[in-house]
């Protein structure tokens, strides 16, 4: 088995085609799981590997699978979250474009482990060309017998449906995604019940991010111990760090979890351009509270970032240089959440809009001294009080930005 088979993104220049994927050892892990392992053992292996969700929340994947009730004759579904709406994030796109069979193989393994026969890949509307690539890969896999009925000579089979979103950030929230697949307005459901019990079309459903599933074949091929040897004890393996903003070489870098933020930015992304110094870094997509330059030593794993009062989220690193006024960052942030709030629950619907209105006034030079405290207090009014995690996703980064860059903002208001 070549080294490439366990990398989420193949080497530059290598093909996404099935033939090339097979050349990299592809579908061997799925074959192994389906033909020689019990479903419970597959779940146990993934749990042992300590694979945490790569979409943002970081929920242990194997544990999630184990929540689906065993037995029963009804259908159960696998939903792949390829909505990738978190600003700054572009890693799932790369997997879908450059290594779609890795995702499909991960899906086959997950479906086998949980007893699922139908999978839906929910691809964000803006990725319609990307979805075409995925459809092509599915057709290849179906033709070769890696997807469809009777896989690897067993009676296990998996059908894969590609479902395109229509451009709403909220549909990346797993229950809003389910509503959207069901053909309804994309807005989150009340939990409990959780999707593992009542999910798509009220059937038990596993929802995993693209990168999470793409990490599964490696675990099955090389074993959980190999995976846990990479990264941090409670957040194992590698993940794709997407770096954008004020760096010389923006891009995707697959590194062990726990790699320090500074290493990723300086050693891999080439550091800030000439004459620019780093003012702040968003470590895990826009919803991850930003870090100041002096916090760049933070290791990029769940627990370390939680300790820094931020989160690793989607591991999308946005570097903000010292030439960018922080009020501009705040305004972009506020506009995004006000635009993307689904409007279902009060604190998020009004809170995001109110903050955006106040920030816009501030940015237009019509701020009042009390405005920054007002924004903090509105964020407090949203935090932990909304129907879905988007309230926190909006409130926390705004709160952190205003708190950490209060001096600069105060000066901006006074001007």
């Amino acid at each position, binding site marked *: 088995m070549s080294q490439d088979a366990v990398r989420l993104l193949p080497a530059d220049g290598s093909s996404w085609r099935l033939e090339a994927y097979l050349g990299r050892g592809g579908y061997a892990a799925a074959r192994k799981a389906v033909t020689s392992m019990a479903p419970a053992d597959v779940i146990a292996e993934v749990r042992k590997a300590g694979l945490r969700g790569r979409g943002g929340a970081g929920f242990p994947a194997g544990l999630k699978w184990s929540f689906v009730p065993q037995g029963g004759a009804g259908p159960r579904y696998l939903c792949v979250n390829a909505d990738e709406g978190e600003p700054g994030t572009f890693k799932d796109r790369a997997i879908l474009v450059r290594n779609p069979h890795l995702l499909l193989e991960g899906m086959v393994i997950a479906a086998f482990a949980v007893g699922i026969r139908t999978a839906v890949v929910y691809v964000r509307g803006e990725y319609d060309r990307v979805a075409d690539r995925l459809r092509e890969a599915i057709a290849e896999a179906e033709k070769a017998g890696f997807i469809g009925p009777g896989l690897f000579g067993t009676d296990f089979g998996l059908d894969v449906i590609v479902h395109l979103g229509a451009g709403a950030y909220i549909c990346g929230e797993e229950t809003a995604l389910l509503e959207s697949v069901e053909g309804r307005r994309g807005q989150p459901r*009340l939990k409990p019940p959780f999707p593992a019990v009542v999910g798509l079309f009220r059937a038990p459903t596993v929802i995993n991010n693209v990168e999470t599933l793409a990490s599964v074949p490696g675990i099955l091929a090389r074993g959980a111990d190999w995976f846990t040897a990479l990264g941090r004890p409670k957040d194992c393996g590698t993940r794709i760090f997407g770096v954008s903003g004020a760096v010389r070489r923006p891009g995707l870098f697959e590194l062990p979890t726990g790699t320090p933020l500074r290493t990723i930015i300086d050693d891999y992304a080439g550091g800030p351009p000439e004459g620019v110094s780093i003012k702040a870094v968003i470590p895990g997509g826009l919803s991850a509270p930003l870090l100041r330059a002096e916090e760049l030593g933070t290791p990029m794993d769940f627990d370390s970032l939680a300790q820094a009062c931020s989160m690793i989220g989607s591991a999308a690193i946005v570097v903000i240089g010292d030439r960018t006024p922080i009020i501009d960052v705040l305004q972009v942030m506020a506009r995004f959440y006000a635009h993307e709030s689904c409007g279902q629950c009060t604190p998020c619907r009004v809170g995001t809009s109110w903050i955006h209105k106040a920030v816009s006034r501030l940015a237009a030079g019509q701020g009042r001294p009390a405005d920054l405290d007002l924004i903090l207090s509105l964020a407090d009014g949203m935090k932990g009080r909304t129907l879905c995690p988007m309230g926190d996703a909006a409130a926390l980064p705004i709160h952190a930005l205003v708190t950490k860059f209060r001096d600069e903002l105060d000066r901006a208001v006074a001007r």
Partner: protein
Amino acid sequence: MVGLSIDGRAVRVPEGTNVLQAAERAGVAIPHFCYHPALEAEGNCRMCLVEIEGLPKLELSCSTAVREGMVVRTAAERVVQARKDVLEFLLAEHPLDCPICDKAGECRLQDYYDAHGLFPGRFFEAKERREKKVAIGRGLLLDRERCILCTRCVRFLRKVVGTGELGVFERGVRSEVGTYDATPVANNYSGNLVDICPVGAITDTDFRFRTRAWFLHGKPTVCPLCSRGCAVVVESVSGYPLGEGERRVFRVRAGDNPAVNGPWICDLGRAGRRDIDENRLTRMVKAAAPGVDLSWREGIAEVAARILAVPGEERGARVAVVLNSFMTCEELAAAGELFLDGLRLAKVYFADPAPGSADRLLLTGERAPNLRGALEAGFQPRPPDLDAIAGAEVVLVFGPPIGALFTEGVLRRTLASVPAVYFFGSHAGPLDGLAGLVFPMAVPAEKSGSFINVDGLRQAFGRAVEPRPGVVAEGAILAALARALVPSGGGADVR
């Protein structure tokens, strides 16, 4: 049963009860907008958040099921702060047009602000401008600025009626309730949208700008417009701000009777408001002397004398009575005693509205409330036999429905040959001009008594509105008639 503690009060409730309901059982009212006991919890208003021991975040009381030993605090500082914050968010984009809002006085937003808010405003931005008068269906106007997007209306139409005419469109702060492709709300339960709207977003054109909620006196009764027997509340104003002695019914809204209608009523029953106030007969009229004031007692004396003028042995065949199933069980029992047992009349008929079509929810095909009461009182209700009535010497007609069964011309021809016709009716109709005496009668909302509904359930009700002076109920008429016709001592044989 599950035992838990709410604000230090121990309460035991059935398994599956939510915390909000359990708190109500314990006497603790948790404020809420979107939750409605008859609809699935949606948890969008965020007003009912409470503290549950052992859980880090505040939890929704509307969607959290009780657990044994649960310790709930509804007055903790952070709970009160969360309520304030939700109110502030809702009021930020609210037009605050209470002075011209029909809901003022019975508005949850007002009530909760009074109880939990009372903070100065911090919203200095431009409010969203939205449409304030969207016609979403028959008699319904939607004010999108007042709407707090609780989606009770949307869920009611989807889950209860099943017609689903309303949905939420757009997103974020621009979210709004609307109809699909302007297809209006069109079903027999649309009036409930006004009842369940916690604010003044959906108003009823029949009530809009007519009065203020705080002038209304609501009293429960049973809807008389079909045999379902739904609980309704009749809301009226007597005196101020109307003229002295004036009385008007402004609204009939749903009562709450889990055994019959839950919290809903149909639009037919709601429109029963008009039956109470409009087109009413309010004074005795003697055809021979229309300008003369006459009391109903004098009228009854005349009726009794006319009946007694028919020779005793002939009365059974020559006195005809038309009754109806709008009469209460008590009235029907009295009518049975007098007309069947006492006078032994052969010509006793029932004039009820023609059956309509039933719907899946509440409305039955029988458009009268007490057919089973008539059976219980010993009647075998049969429709009026016009030939038999035409051959009678004295005819007593109770109730206006006969006017809907036959044309005025037919009635006129039938009654032309009858020497004495007496009409006991609540509403003006073709019989007014054909009867020697017209008695102004009470409608069910002005009576107390009981009805037996389509499922055999007997429901007693009290008087919901005072009848106008001079208006009399069948009960009094029948009692007076019985006194005049049946000698004291109660002997039944008056032949």
